[in-house]
């Protein structure tokens, strides 16, 4: 059966319309639990039983009142049995209301939770269903979600390794003010887990960067983000560290402030040395065009496929369009505008995509502007990208990979980057998904398949505010104003 046909059937049954399901189609849907078959005698039996529901309910209530008026903890067995029967009849009544007749097979169908879920998937990805059989669709969705669970499992192993290493390390080596929390390590672990290699290698890579790099700064969050990004690169430690340190020197000559240099250099560390000059020149051009741009905004634009002048024009368009929709002022709005301007979508659709993402993310991040732009700027359709993000929330939650509820979306956003089902995974998709389908033609500088700059944006605009909130609020925040 084609996926489109499966979607049509499930949708009609969901809407309680007859779907003329053929025997072969029926077998495919019933055997996998997407529909439950109910024969006519069973349905008639339910109808007959449910006719007595009201009378049974009245008797149960009457007996319950008598039982409650009688001392003793336990309801009489007869009443317990009647309550159980009443609950069963109520279930049958609900089922009867959702049954749909199917003439070709002379039976009724009952929609199931699994059927509703697969219908939701088919609806979300319906633009991609053409030519795809239903079994293929199911397999691809299964593989994609299994890969998400594997990624979180890797992240959990990495976090465990980082914690163990931190706890067993000589206290003098890591001053208290530089030691990381569980929340910090989960953030780093989720970035590192994107590489499907032995978690212990990633743990030692992170610790080497954390402890053996001359950071020139005691900013803990910068060191966390920097170590995670550098350790995520698929090259040897010395090469990456060398590039990182040389980039910091280069940035000094391009007017980047000392406090920005760690993140700036980390975000550029994936670029081949031959392209550094081009990127830095673009940053200079962007700064000449708009002197107030901070480095993170400029780097997003400099790494985009657009010449500086066009990138700045897109940036202005994004700002104007966002302001027209009520999103005004502030560094987070500018960050969102630079992410949109650097994205692969057409100039005319940037803000529309952003608005769609904002409407779904409002309230999940504080503020949600940069995360919404990160989702809007990915190559999927906005609702597809939102769906991937929700899948990631489900996986992080069900894997219990968090301590604090406010970590869930932050971690899910990292997990969602580059990931999609049906071969739609895009840049930096290191999960065992499929090859990218929507690539931007490389211009100078080359588009890197790694996510260094994306992680910097995430670290700066998503993780840092959460880390600050956690650092400034006691864990037992809910017990403070306690009058009970």
């Amino acid at each position, binding site marked *: 059966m084609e996926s489109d046909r499966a979607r049509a059937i499930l949708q009609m049954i969901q809407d309680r319309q007859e779907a003329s399901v053929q025997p072969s189609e029926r077998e495919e849907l019933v055997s996998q639990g997407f529909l439950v078959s109910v024969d006519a005698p069973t349905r008639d039996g339910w109808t007959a039983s449910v006719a007595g529901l009201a009378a049974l309910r009245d008797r149960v209530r009457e007996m*319950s*009142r008598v039982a409650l008026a009688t001392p003793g903890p336990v309801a009489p067995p007869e009443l317990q049995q009647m309550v159980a029967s009443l609950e069963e009849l109520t279930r049958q009544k609900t089922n009867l209301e959702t049954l749909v007749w199917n003439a070709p097979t002379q039976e009724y169908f009952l929609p199931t*939770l699994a059927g*509703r879920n697969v219908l939701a998937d088919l609806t979300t990805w319906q633009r991609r269903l053409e030519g795809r059989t239903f079994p293929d669709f199911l397999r691809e969705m299964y593989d994609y979600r299994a890969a998400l669970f594997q990624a979180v499992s890797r992240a959990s192993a990495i976090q465990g390794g980082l914690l163990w290493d931190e706890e067993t390390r000589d206290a003098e080596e890591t001053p208290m003010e530089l030691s990381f929390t569980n929340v910090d390590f989960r953030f780093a672990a989720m970035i590192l887990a994107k590489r499907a290699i032995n978690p212990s290698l990633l743990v030692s890579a992170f610790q080497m960067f954390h402890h053996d790099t001359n950071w020139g700064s005691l900013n803990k969050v910068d060191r966390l983000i920097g170590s995670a990004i550098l350790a995520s690169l698929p090259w040897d430690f010395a090469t990456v560290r060398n590039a990182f340190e040389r980039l910091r020197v280069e940035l000094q000559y391009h007017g980047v402030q000392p406090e920005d240099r760690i993140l700036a250099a980390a975000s550029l560390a994936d670029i081949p040395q031959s392209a550094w000059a081009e990127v830095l020149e673009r940053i200079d051009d962007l700064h000449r065009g708009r002197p107030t741009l901070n480095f993170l905004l400029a780097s997003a634009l400099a790494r985009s496929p657009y010449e500086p002048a066009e990138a700045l024009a897109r940036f202005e368009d994004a700002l104007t369009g966002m302001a027209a929709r009520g999103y005004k002022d502030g560094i987070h709005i500018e960050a969102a505008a630079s992410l949109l301007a650097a994205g692969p979508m057409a100039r005319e659709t940037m803000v529309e995509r952003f608005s769609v993402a904002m409407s779904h993310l409002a309230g999940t991040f504080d503020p949600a502007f940069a995360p919404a732009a990160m989702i809007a700027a990915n190559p999927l359709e906005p609702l597809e990208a939102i769906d991937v993000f929700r899948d990631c929330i*489900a996986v992080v939650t069900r894997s*219990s990979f968090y301590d604090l509820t406010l970590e869930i979306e932050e971690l899910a956003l990292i997990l969602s980057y580059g990931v999609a089902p049906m071969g739609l995974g895009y840049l930096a998709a290191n999960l065992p998904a499929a090859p990218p389908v929507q690539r931007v033609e490389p211009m100078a500088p080359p588009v890197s398949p790694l996510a260094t700059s994306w992680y910097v944006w995430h670290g700066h605009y998503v993780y840092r505010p959460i880390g600050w909130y956690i650092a400034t609020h006691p864990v037992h925040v809910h017990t*403070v104003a306690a*009058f009970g």
Partner: protein
Amino acid sequence: MVREAVWVPNDRVPLVRTRGELEVVGDPRFESFWSREVDGCYVPDLLWKAAGRPSGTPVEGVRDDNRSCLLPDRRLVIDDREYITAVKGCGAAMDAFENVPLNAVRARAICRDPRLSEALATEDGSGLITGERWFGNTPYGGQAPDNAMIGLLASLRADQAQIAGFQVCPVVSLVRLPDEYARIASRFFWYRRYEGAYWQEIRLMPSNVRVYFHSPLTFGVDTSRAFTLFGIETFEGAERFLTNLARSSFAALTLYARSLRHDAASGLYRGLDYQDVWLDKDAVVAADGTLHFADLEGIEDAIAAKPSTVKETIERQFHRHVYEASYALEALAVEVERRWRGFRGPSDRRRWILEVLQRACVADPFLSIEPTGDRLVLHIEPAVDTEACQVEIELASEVGS
């Protein structure tokens, strides 16, 4: 099968258990428990130190709310459900006027006796029963006898742990703080001295997860973590949990109706009503979803002279608390959607809640939920004078849109 009690770890509180000749008022049905398992009173160790360290046994409590502690190793099973002992009035964790721990430094700042102040000069620890008159006539950090007695009286109306389907955290006993401690506690106050005896309330709780406020993990705020704590791992498990939560919440919303009595001698109706208590901070959620009301000192009889007043009280009680109950049901459904998807948006989610709610309440003798056109109507039938006192309340409007 026994449904186990669950509790979220919180700050550990050093207490000292004092036994011996104590004044105790207890529920006779739980006598073996309060006279053997938990007998004694539990004083914060700061108070014990100020008293010159009289004989007693150190006990480690777990902070619950501001002036209570759990004793997780003291448990009792009632009707297949396990409960943990909680002591209310065993010292306040926080300063009454500042958001800081009530430790020895703070205690010395409110101490009216130089000798006591001196005795605490080198002590550490936090948590204190004070002599500050607070919220009417209650010692801050302790419990007043009248409030404790109201809680016990309400609990005595329960059959095991429920009053006509309304689940409560039973109060098993009240213990008077010995004078040697009460005298000291009365020397610590900020503005107004409390005049009266100091008591403690020993109650049983199935968990320390409150609906929205006052616990380290609340169901409404940390729903994800609550799912993990309660072991909800499947959609079916979540639906069972929702069924219990809905059933018990609606029992709480109709407490007055289900506890209504008519006194022929006086001609008055009496039913239980909530005073200064709320479902969001004064009730806890058990591991199977059953809402248990914890602060029974806030539940007292409300009197009505005629059926119209009864109906008004039923309606007022429902409308005063329905938002809190609905919030918990919605929080659960939102979390289900986050984990297992399956709903086609918020309206589908609400439809699920209402369907489960109808099923959950189908055997409730005091209420029924019926579709009427595109509305869902709650019919409340009080325990007495049903014909004259029954009430209909619109539960949901434009269902399906």
